[in-house]
C-alpha cells in the first residue's frame, strides 16, 4: 500500500492541514471571472428597485406625488411609507435596539435617506422613475455636531419624546435630552477620580476619531423572490450574517422562518458594511410580495457611502495618570458618540459602545473608568465595526495616543513607556480594570522582537539627526517613527454576555463524511474574501485526517448551513473555527470506535496519528480515516449507528485577544504636507497560525485600509448636512501607487481556551495600523511641540500642523 511507504511527514504534508500555506480553492473561479456575486443573479421576470432619496439632511415631507413616475415606461410601482404602514413595515428594528424608518415617515433625518422605492422593469426605467417622483420638503434646522445636538431645542426624533414632553428611557437606559441615546459606563468612577486627583503626573487630551466608511468594492444589494405558489421567500444578498437576516426578516414580515431562505453568494468585501439590515432589503421583499416577481436592489457607490454603515465618529477625551517614573496608575475616558439619525450600530446588545472598554489596551492599568454618550445627529445611521471588532479601533487608537501623549509629558521614549507598562506574561489570564479577562499574551517578547527588527535605536538616532538638519535648514523633510502595540478583543462571543437581537453569538459547523473519504462541512459564517473554504478545510484536515483537498466548505445558505451569527469582528476563526475543530473531534471520536472494531481491539487501545488510527504500540496495525469512512457506511457495527456526521454549536468561554507590535517610518514634506511611508513593520500574534499565506494577505489588506483611514479617508459633512465625500474622487481609497510594501513578522501565543489555540487576525492590522500611521505623523512633529492633531492626516491637515508650529516661518 502507498501508505506504508509514505513517511509521517509526507502524510502530514498530504493533508494540507493547519500551518501550511495552502493555495486558495476559491481562486479558480475568481481569476476566471466566474465568481457569483449578488448583482450576477438574474432571474426570469426580475424587476429592479431603487430609491428616491432625500437631498436634505433634516426636513419634513409635506407630499410625495408618484403620478408622473408611474407614467414612465417600465415603472410598475412606487412604494412610500404610507404603503408600508398597513404591513407594519414602514419602520424596522435596528441591531442596537432602536428603530429606523424603512421609508421616510413624515420626515427625513439625513441626506440620502430613503423616501420612496421605485420598482421598474430594469434599472434604466427605475432611474427615470426616480427623477419623476415629486417630493415636497420643508427644511428643518440641521444638527451635524453631537455637542450641539445635546444642547439644542431642535428635536430630531419626535417619536422618542412622550406627548407630555418627557423623555422615555431608551434601549440602554435613561436619556437626558431628546437627542441623547444612552450613557454607558464601565469601570469605577470614584476610584478613578481619586487616582487622577492624587496623581504625580496627569495628562488630559481630546481627540476626534473621524467618521469614515468600510467601502467594500462591491456595494450592498439583494434579490428578493417571493414564490407565492409555495409560500417561500428567497433572499439573496450581501449579508455578513445570513441567519440573523433570516430571523430579522421573519420577525418583521411575519413570514415563518422555515419559509425564508437567505443566501449570501460570493461577497465582494464586507469590512462591516454588510452586517446591518437596510431599507433596501425590506423594500425588495415587499416589492416582490406585491408584484409576485423577483426584485433586485443594488446600491450605487454614492448610496453606499452616504447611507449604509458608516464607522467611527467618536469624540474622545482622556485623562491618564502616572508616577514620575512612568508607571500608569489610572485612566479616564469619555466619548461623545455620533450615531446619526437612528441608532443602527452593529454591536452585541449589552454593549452599546461595543468593546470600547478594551481601551486600557495592552497595559497594566489598575484603575479605569469609561463613559460613552450616544447622540443623534442629522447624519446617516450605522456605527459598524469597519475591519475591527466592535469599536476596538476607537479604543486602541485612544490608548495608543494617550500613551504617546503621556510619553511627551514625561519626556520619555514612547517605546520604553510602553515596555514598563505592558501586562506581563505571567499575569495572564489578566483581569483588566474595565472588565475583560485577557486570555494570553507575551507582549515584551513581541515588542523586543519588533524594535530589534527595525533597529529602533538606529531610527531614533537618524531622526535626531534629521531634526538637527531641519533646524539648520539642510532639509525640509521631517521623519516620524510611529509605534503601536495593540491588543484586540475578538471572537464575540460568549452567549452569557453577547447576543444580537437576542441571538446568542455562538457559531456552528456541521460535517458529513462521504463513504469514499471526502467530506462537506457547512458553517454559520460567510467569507467575504477571508478564504474560509481554504482555511476551515485545513482545520478539519488536521482534526479528522482527511486531506483538505477532499473537503468542501460551504457557507451562506440558511437552508443548508447550521445557524450561526456570521462573519465580522474577526469572529470566524475564534468561534466558527472552534466549532469546526469540535465537530471534527466528534467525527474522530466515532472514527476511533469504528477503527477499534475493525482492528479488533478496545477503543482505548487505538490512537489517532495524522490520517489514521493505529494500535498503540503496533503502528503497523492501523486503519486510515478513508478506510474508516467507508466502513461507517458499509459495515454493521454493533452499538454504532451507520454514517459519519457531526455538528457542533460552539459557545466560546471567552473572547480571544490577538495582539501585535507595529512600527512605521515616515518622511513628511513640511511644505506640502505630503507624507511618504518609508517602511512599515508589522508583527502579529494571532495565536496558532492556520495558513501563513492568508494571514500575511490579511495583514497587507488591513494595513492598507488603516493607511487610508489615517491619512485621508473620511465621510465629511458640511454645516447643512451635505455629504462632501460621496464618490471615489473624494473618498480616499489608495491605489497601488500610494501603498508601500509591508514587512510582516509574528510570534505565536496560543489562546488557552480555544480548541486549536487560534485567535483571529483579519482585523488586527487595521486596529493596530491606524494608530501606528497616526503616531508616525505625530512623532515627526514631536520635537517641535506637537501633542495632538486629529486624523485624517491628509496633506492639508499635516500642512496645517506644520504651519501652526511655525515651521513655515
Amino acid at each position, binding site marked *: 500500500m502507498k501508505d506504508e511507504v509514505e513517511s509521517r511527514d509526507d502524510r502530514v504534508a498530504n493533508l494540507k492541514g493547519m500551518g501550511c500555506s495552502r493555495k486558495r480553492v476559491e481562486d479558480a*473561479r475568481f481569476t476566471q471571472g466566474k465568481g457569483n*456575486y449578488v448583482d450576477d443573479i438574474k432571474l426570469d421576470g426580475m424587476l429592479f428597485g431603487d430609491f428616491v432619496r432625500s437631498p436634505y439632511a433634516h426636513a419634513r415631507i409635506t407630499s410625495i406625488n408618484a403620478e408622473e413616475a408611474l407614467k414612465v415606461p417600465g415603472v410598475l410601482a412606487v412604494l412610500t411609507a404610507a404603503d408600508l404602514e398597513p404591513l407594519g413595515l414602514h419602520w424596522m428594528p435596528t441591531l442596537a435596539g432602536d428603530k429606523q424608518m424603512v421609508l421616510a415617515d413624515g420626515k427625513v433625518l439625513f441626506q440620502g435617506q430613503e423616501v420612496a422605492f421605485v420598482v421598474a422593469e430594469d434599472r434604466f426605467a427605475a432611474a427615470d422613475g426616480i427623477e419623476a417622483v415629486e417630493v415636497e420638503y420643508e427644511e428643518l434646522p440641521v444638527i451635524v455636531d453631537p455637542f450641539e445636538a445635546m444642547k439644542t431645542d431642535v428635536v430630531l426624533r419626535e417619536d422618542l419624546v412622550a406627548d407630555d414632553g418627557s423623555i422615555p428611557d431608551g434601549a440602554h437606559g435613561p436619556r437626558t435630552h431628546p437627542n441623547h441615546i444612552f450613557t454607558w459606563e464601565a469601570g469605577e468612577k470614584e476610584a478613578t477620580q481619586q487616582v487622577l486627583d492624587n496623581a504625580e503626573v496627569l495628562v488630559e487630551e481630546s481627540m476626534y476619531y473621524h467618521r469614515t466608511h468600510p467601502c467594500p468594492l462591491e456595494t450592498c444589494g439583494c434579490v428578493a423572490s417571493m414564490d407565492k405558489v409555495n409560500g417561500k421567500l428567497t433572499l439573496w444578498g450581501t449579508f455578513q450574517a445570513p441567519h440573523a437576516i433570516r430571523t430579522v426578516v421573519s420577525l418583521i414580515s411575519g413570514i415563518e422562518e422555515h419559509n425564508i431562505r437567505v443566501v449570501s453568494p460570493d461577497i465582494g468585501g464586507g469590512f462591516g458594511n454588510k452586517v446591518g439590515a437596510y431599507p433596501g432589503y425590506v423594500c425588495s421583499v415587499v416589492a416582490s410580495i406585491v408584484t409576485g416577481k423577483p426584485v433586485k436592489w443594488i446600491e450605487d*457607490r454614492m448610496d453606499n457611502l452616504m447611507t449604509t454603515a458608516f464607522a467611527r465618529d467618536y469624540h474622545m477625551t482622556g485623562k491618564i495618570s502616572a508616577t514620575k517614573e512612568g508607571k500608569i496608575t489610572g485612566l479616564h475616558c469619555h466619548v461623545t458618540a455620533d450615531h446619526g439619525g437612528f441608532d443602527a450600530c452593529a454591536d452585541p446588545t449589552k454593549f452599546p459602545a461595543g468593546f470600547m472598554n478594551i481601551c486600557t489596551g495592552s497595559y497594566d492599568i489598575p484603575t479605569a473608568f469609561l463613559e460613552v454618550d450616544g447622540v443623534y445627529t442629522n447624519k446617516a445611521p450605522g456605527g459598524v465595526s469597519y475591519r475591527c471588532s466592535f469599536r476596538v479601533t476607537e479604543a486602541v487608537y485612544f490608548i495608543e495616543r494617550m500613551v504617546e501623549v503621556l510619553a511627551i509629558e514625561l519626556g520619555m521614549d514612547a517605546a520604553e513607556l510602553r515596555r514598563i507598562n505592558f501586562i506581563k506574561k505571567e499575569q495572564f489570564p489578566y483581569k483588566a480594570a474595565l472588565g475583560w479577562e485577557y486570555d494570553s499574551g507575551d507582549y515584551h517578547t513581541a515588542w523586543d522582537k519588533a524594535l530589534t527588527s527595525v533597529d529602533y535605536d538606529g531610527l531614533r538616532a537618524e531622526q535626531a539627526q534629521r531634526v538637527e538638519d531641519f533646524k539648520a535648514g539642510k532639509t525640509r523633510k521631517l521623519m516620524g517613527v510611529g509605534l503601536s502595540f495593540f491588543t484586540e478583543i475578538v471572537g464575540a462571543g460568549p452567549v452569557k454576555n453577547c447576543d444580537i437581537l437576542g441571538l446568542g453569538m455562538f457559531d456552528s459547523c456541521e460535517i458529513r463524511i462521504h463513504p469514499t473519504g471526502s467530506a462537506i462541512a457547512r458553517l454559520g459564517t460567510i467569507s467575504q474574501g477571508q478564504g474560509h473554504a481554504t482555511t476551515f478545510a485545513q482545520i478539519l484536515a488536521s482534526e479528522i485526517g482527511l486531506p483538505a483537498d477532499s473537503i468542501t466548505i460551504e457557507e451562506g445558505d440558511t437552508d443548508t448551513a447550521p445557524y450561526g451569527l456570521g462573519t465580522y469582528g474577526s469572529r470566524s476563526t475564534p468561534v466558527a473555527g472552534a466549532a469546526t475543530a469540535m465537530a471534527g473531534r466528534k467525527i474522530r471520536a466515532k472514527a476511533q470506535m469504528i477503527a477499534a472494531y475493525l482492528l479488533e481491539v478496545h477503543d482505548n487501545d487505538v490512537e489517532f496519528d495524522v490520517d489514521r488510527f493505529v494500535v498503540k504500540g503496533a503502528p503497523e496495525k492501523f486503519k486510515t480515516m478513508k478506510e474508516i469512512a467507508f466502513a461507517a457506511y458499509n459495515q454493521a457495527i454493533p452499538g454504532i449507528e451507520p454514517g459519519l456526521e457531526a455538528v457542533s454549536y460552539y459557545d466560546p468561554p471567552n473572547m480571544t485577544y490577538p495582539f501585535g507590535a507595529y512600527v512605521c517610518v515616515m518622511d513628511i514634506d513640511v511644505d506640502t504636507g505630503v507624507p511618504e511611508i518609508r517602511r512599515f513593520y508589522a508583527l502579529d500574534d494571532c495565536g496558532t497560525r492556520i495558513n501563513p499565506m492568508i494571514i500575511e494577505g490579511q495583514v497587507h489588506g488591513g494595513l492598507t485600509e488603516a493607511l487610508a483611514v489615517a491619512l485621508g479617508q473620511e465621510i465629511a459633512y458640511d454645516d447643512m448636512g451635505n455629504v462632501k465625500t460621496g464618490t471615489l474622487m473624494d473618498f480616499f481609497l489608495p491605489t497601488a501607487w500610494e501603498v508601500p510594501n509591508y514587512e510582516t513578522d509574528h510570534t505565536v501565543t496560543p489562546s488557552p481556551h480555544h480548541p486549536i489555540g487560534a485567535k483571529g487576525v483579519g482585523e488586527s492590522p487595521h486596529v493596530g495600523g491606524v494608530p501606528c500611521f497616526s503616531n508616525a505623523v505625530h512623532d515627526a512633529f514631536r520635537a517641535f511641540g506637537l501633542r495632538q492633531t486629529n486624523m485624517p492626516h491628509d496633506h492639508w491637515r499635516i500642512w496645517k500642523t506644520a504651519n501652526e508650529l511655525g515651521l513655515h516661518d
Partner: protein
Amino acid sequence: MSKKMHIKLNVNGKDEEFLAEPRELLIYTLRERLNITGPHIGCETSHCGACTVTIDGKSVKSCTMFAAQADGKEITTIEGIGTPDSLHPLQEAFKEHHGLQCGYCTPGMITRATKLLEENPNPSEEDIRFGMAGNLCRCTGYQNIVKSILAAAAEMNAAKEAAE
C-alpha cells in the same frame, strides 16, 4: 426613452448584435445583456477599474463607455483570457501568490495586467504600481498583486525564450 440603436460588437471572439438604448453603458451590455459577469461595477465614476475590459487594444473602464460608442469594436473580458484547462499565466500567478481575496476586483485587475505586460513585458515593481493604479483593491493592499504580475511576467518571458 430615445430610439434604440442597432449595435454590433465582437466580444471574446464572438459577434454579438442587438438593439439597445444609446444610454446603455457597456458594462450593462456585457453583464446583463450578454451574461458576461466577470467585469464588475464598483464605483461607477471611472475610479475603481473593476469593470476594466480591453477594447481594440486599450484598457477601458466599461462603466464609462456607452455600448453605442463601442459599436463595431472588439472587446476582451476576463472570460476571454485563458480557459479552465489552460489558464493565462496571470491567472496562474494570482492564484499562486495570493493576489486576490474577495475576488471582486480580480477580473479587472487581470484584464488590465494583460495589457500592461503586452506593452511592457519586463516591468519593474514601480512600473506595475503605476500601470495598475487605475484598479482599486480593498482587500490585498496590492503587495501580492504586484508580486503576481512580476511572477507572470517572468513566466511569460521564460516561455517566450523557450519557444525561440
